[in-house]
């Protein structure tokens, strides 16, 4: 088992290096000169003389050969010091540290909402197949999958602002400072994203449950006269949930992309928005580090999912 984990971690590391190379190459071909942008300012009308641009490029280390830039960045990753963001001047890791809690919190809230709502929905839908409950749930989940999350978010904003004249607290507040204010700020994007998750997971849960309910061992349980609740929870649910666990982990990695949209829509200072801004400004220390971070998160979640899979299904062993 340990050997399995170690070998997975090793291959994840290789994948990450591959990711970092691809992104580094992509950022190099982006048009635009960061030094000029910094001198000119984010929305300003300034002027950047060639001498000042050259001086700033030297100061930022942008005039070194490409492979040196890449290697020094890679080394920096391990020492948790990849230099400074080219647009804010603060260390990249500090920026990430400041913004990561928001994004993580948003992702976790999303998956929690998604799971809490969807599994009961899917199960109820399956055990009452073709009744009005089933139809209602199916419509809700179909709508959730179809509606783009930025539209759901916009609708939420519309209803809250126009219908209820409600306003979130101004300026992001981290949860340890004021949990209620923080909750008020993050609940809405989490719901918008969570709705999508609910939809997808509910559908999957439903079809998995349906399949499991037709199995012989379930029929045996019925025949034995066990109550419905026991049949469902002890026999059916566990097996139905296996692929759902995988799905939740896929959703986690989707939600990473989803937070990019939600943070942009709700103007939250998280990693997703930082990434979009960094791409626009060719701030490649930020872009590279953030994307590698995302990829690492995804790979770790995949690993954890596989382990959870193994825990849930005793038939699975790890070579």
């Amino acid at each position, binding site marked *: 088992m340990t050997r399995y984990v170690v070998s997975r971690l090793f*291959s994840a590391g*290789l*994948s*990450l290096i*591959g*990711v970092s190379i*691809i*992104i580094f190459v*992509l*950022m190099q*071909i*982006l*048009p635009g000169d960061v030094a000029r942008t910094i001198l000119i300012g984010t929305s300003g009308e300034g002027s950047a003389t060639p001498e000042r641009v050259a001086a700033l490029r030297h100061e930022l280390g942008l005039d070194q050969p490409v492979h040196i830039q890449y290697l020094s960045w890679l080394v920096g990753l391990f020492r948790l010091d990849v230099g400074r963001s080219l647009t804010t001047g603060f260390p990249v890791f500090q920026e990430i540290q400041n913004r990561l809690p928001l994004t993580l919190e948003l992702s976790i809230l999303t998956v929690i909402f998604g799971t809490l709502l969807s599994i009961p929905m899917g199960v109820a839908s399956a055990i009452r197949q073709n009744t009005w409950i089933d139809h209602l749930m*199916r419509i809700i989940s*179909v*709508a959730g*999958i*179809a*509606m*783009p999350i*930025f*539209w759901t978010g*916009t*609708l939420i*904003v*519309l209803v809250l*602002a*126009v219908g209820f004249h409600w306003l979130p607290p101004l300026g992001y507040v981290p949860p340890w400072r004021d949990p209620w204010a923080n909750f008020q700020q993050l609940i809405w994007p989490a719901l918008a994203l969570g709705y999508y998750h609910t939809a997808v997971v509910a559908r999957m849960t439903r*079809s998995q449950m*349906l*399949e499991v309910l*037709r199995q012989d061992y379930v029929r045996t349980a019925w025949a034995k006269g066990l109550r419905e609740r026991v049949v469902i929870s002890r026999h059916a649910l566990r097996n139905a949930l296996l692929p759902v666990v995988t799905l939740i982990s896929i959703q986690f*990695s*989707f939600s*990473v*992309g*989803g937070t*990019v*949209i939600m943070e*942009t*829509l709700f103007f939250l200072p998280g990693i997703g928005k930082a*990434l*979009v801004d960094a*791409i*626009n400004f060719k701030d490649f220390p930020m*872009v590279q580090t953030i*994307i590698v971070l*995302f*990829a690492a998160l*995804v*790979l770790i979640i*995949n690993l954890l999912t596989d382990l959870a899979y193994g825990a849930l299904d005793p038939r699975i062993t790890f070579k």
Partner: protein
Amino acid sequence: MEELRPARPWSAHLFSFARANTLATGGALIAFVMIVLAIGAPVLAPRDPLKLFYGNEFLPPSGQFLLGTDDLGRDILSRIIYGARTSLYVGILSVFFGQVIGGLIGMVSGYFGGQTDTVIQRIMDIMMSFPTLILALAIVAGLGPSLENVVAAISLTQIPRAARVIRSTSLSEKESQYVDAARSIGASHVRILSIHILPQCLAPLWVLSSIALPTAILTEASLSFLGLGVPPPSPTWGGMLAGAGREYVEQAPWIGVFPGVAISLAVFGFNMLGDGLRDLLDPRLRGTR
């Protein structure tokens, strides 16, 4: 002697199928309408989607402008119809390229196995560990927003999954008796691939495509929303939502609501169409719908 019952016309079969699967049929109809709109846009759109009708800004839906006008006085209905054209064009093209290229890679990778397979799979894994939207974002940002680059970006995001699935088909097919036989008489790899393996991959490819198309449409809408989709002046649904739709959500909600509805309907329709197709091609799943 027993009377032979007259055969039911195929239309009757269709209707009973439709009644049994209302959701799927509804969706398929919507998808069909979208396709018609996309193809027939120049004829079906009542006005030029790019033209500014001065003095007619911010009109709510009315007899004159069925879905109202936006902040610059453009007809929203015409823009939605042309938006369908963009979304479907991008969606179908990227699914085509993504699945074909991915499928080829997967087929070859599974068939030849060994080192090639490992290397290719490693690369596919790397690509898959990027969240889809972020990969598409980075590619479009790198190459610049344009129709071709958006198609390229979305295709690239689809390749790894297609490669994975087709690879497993290819793996199982290469052990089949037909392939054994062909190999024993000395058939070339190309021949085996094209005659024995490829046809078996088509059905999974169809299924994959039907799942991939609505995702592609959503990704295109998301890219447009973030400002990195097909560039103006072409109207795109995501773009209509992002700009004036968001800004005037209180004063002129129709500007944002209709594109949102359009995206949802398109995704829903093609999802249902895909589900129906899957049912037809994969009978094992029929009972669990």
